[in-house]
């Protein structure tokens, strides 16, 4: 199976707002929102990225559609490395990668009807003949499970779930190689979320789509993705097949994350806190709150391969030690 997208050592830096800096002074402090992240999305598969708020999930999504430029590292799309300085390359990214954002209200123009919203996307690429527009719009409306009458509606006349389907239709009306879904169901009711997730799974097999699925909801990502990456403060701490990552977590942070997944039962909610503390400034970023921290953790841990397959990777010193011992 070939890779649709490869991210290699992706690093995105933001200038931090200094707390004590003078009003017009530019702060020189920077934050790595995404720090040396590598992953692959394979053809016809869903790659999930999970993590808490502020872990850099959405930043990665935005890099993939050229909204942010990485400071270091590369994105390779269908074998071609993208040069973010070249406008043609960014267009190449956007033509092949579609994106759906979390907020269905904010991402649709309130003054345009659904048909016009979809037409805008078609006009922008010139991939379809003008006379085929209506046919294509009808086709995509059907595929994403929208009722026919929605074509003539304004976004405000649609429910949350329907708006999210319009976003989906807009990103797919011109066929894409990769679909990036950034928290697509987080603002929806549970029952509507289930309907949208079912539609997405159908679309994936019907159109043989590759998907990058981003969410903080482990229940959802488990249900949707073939492979899974866990982000913690911009670092990818574990990558592997979803089943392995969920049932046999390697990194202490992943273990803790999985323990926090809400289940349908009355449980004594744990007092444990996750990343209230913030990342450690040197060595392993998780060492500040890691329950199994030891003296080696002052050094930054290397990524290491867990199996014969190319995918499963985790970065944790303790795992490395226990592996070389066994």
């Amino acid at each position: 199976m070939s890779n649709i997208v490869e991210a290699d050592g992706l690093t995105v830096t933001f200038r931090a707002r200094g707390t004590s800096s003078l009003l017009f002074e530019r702060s020189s402090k920077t934050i790595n929102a995404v720090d040396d992240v590598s992953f692959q999305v394979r053809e016809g598969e869903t790659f999930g990225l999970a993590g808490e708020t502020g872990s850099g999930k959405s930043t990665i999504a935005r890099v993939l559609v050229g909204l942010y430029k990485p400071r270091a590292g590369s994105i390779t799309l269908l074998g071609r490395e993208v040069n973010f300085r070249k406008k043609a390359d960014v267009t190449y990214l956007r033509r092949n990668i579609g994106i759906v954002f979390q907020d269905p209200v904010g991402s649709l123009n309130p003054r345009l009807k659904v048909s016009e919203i979809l037409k805008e996307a078609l006009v922008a690429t010139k991939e379809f003949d003008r006379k085929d527009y209506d046919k294509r719009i009808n086709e995509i409306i059907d595929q994403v499970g929208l009722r026919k009458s929605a074509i003539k509606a304004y976004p405000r006349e649609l429910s949350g779930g329907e708006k999210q389907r319009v976003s989906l239709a807009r990103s797919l009306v011109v066929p894409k190689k990769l679909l990036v879904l950034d928290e697509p169901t987080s603002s929806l009711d549970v029952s509507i979320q289930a309907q949208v997730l079912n539609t997405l799974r159908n679309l994936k097999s019907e159109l043989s789509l590759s998907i990058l699925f981003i969410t903080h909801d482990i229940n959802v990502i488990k249900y949707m993705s073939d492979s899974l990456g866990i982000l913690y403060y911009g670092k990818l701490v574990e990558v592997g097949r979803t089943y392995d990552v969920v049932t046999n977590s390697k990194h202490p942070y992943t273990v803790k994350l999985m323990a926090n997944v809400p289940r349908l039962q009355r449980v004594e909610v744990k007092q444990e806190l996750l990343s209230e503390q913030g990342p450690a400034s040197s060595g392993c970023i998780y060492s500040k709150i890691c329950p199994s921290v030891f003296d080696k953790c002052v050094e930054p841990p290397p990524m290491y391969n867990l199996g014969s397959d190319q995918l499963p990777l985790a970065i944790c010193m303790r795992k490395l030690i226990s592996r070389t011992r066994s």
Partner: protein
Amino acid sequence: MESPEVPSRNLLAVDGLTLDYATVDGRARVLENVSLHIEKGEIVGIVGESGSGKTTLGLAIIGLLDSPPADIIKGSIAFEGTDMRSLNPAELTRYRGTAIGMVFQESLAALNPVYKTETQLRESIEVLQRAQKLHLTAGAEAEMMVEILKDLRLDKPEVVLKKYPHELSGGMRQRISIAMAIVEKPRLLILDEVTTGLDVYVQNRILTILKDLNKRTGTTMILITHDLTVASQICDRLCVMYAGRVMEEGKAENVLNNSRHPYTQKLMAAIPQGFVDSPPLPAPTGEAPDLRRLPAGCKFHPRCPFVMPKCKETEPPIFEAPDGARVACWLEEKK
């Protein structure tokens, strides 16, 4: 007053509450014959999809509904035996905050953007002082603020007090709004979607704090949410609403492990559990109904997998199950 049979241990007794919203294209029945009794110290979850009337019920209890458009047709809301509907606005104001508190979903909208945390909290403390005729010194007030933020496990409370809402994260802001409500020591706290929009870990943290508060101080809580997993974590009792009606109500364990209403079952089935190779989710088809154009009979029948001819004609009454659960479904009749 209208319900003398209500035992006195009930902190809140809502009986047969029926409420309309007058809209441009007709009246919408938002609540229909809703009854809910809450005992002291309980955490009761009100669960349902958007438009099921959960928030309206919460607002009706605390008396925050604007009339018009809201119009209470019948029913009573008794808090500690006092009929809330008979109170005039001034009397109602005395109940709000110190007797019944409410926290809303949008923490950014609930906080005043030009006030620092300490100013917002001080406002709440002043309400408490007026109610209890207390006179706290500035030092005591400050101590109280730090104490409450510590209770909510906010790191460095002294720093947080000096910050404006926009400088805080979503989870921190939500905890500040909760702090503003609980500092007034309400006997009933209504929490409307307080964890929606927050990620799972912050959500867990807030639920833990609420449960802890309930254990320590015995504050009675109503948790309004669309997410059954959220409600299932800390609630003693669950009340599932659909189209302004109570569909199922009972002990949390029973509703979760032995749900009787097809709607509750569908809601639970909609939560993803399996991996990528698992079958599609058996979600309820269609969307929540338009309250102005409700179907005849049981309001859930167009989406119900067990629909019978009877369901399309007559609305089911509330059947009481042996374990005390109340279920509005014709399937219960046979049992």
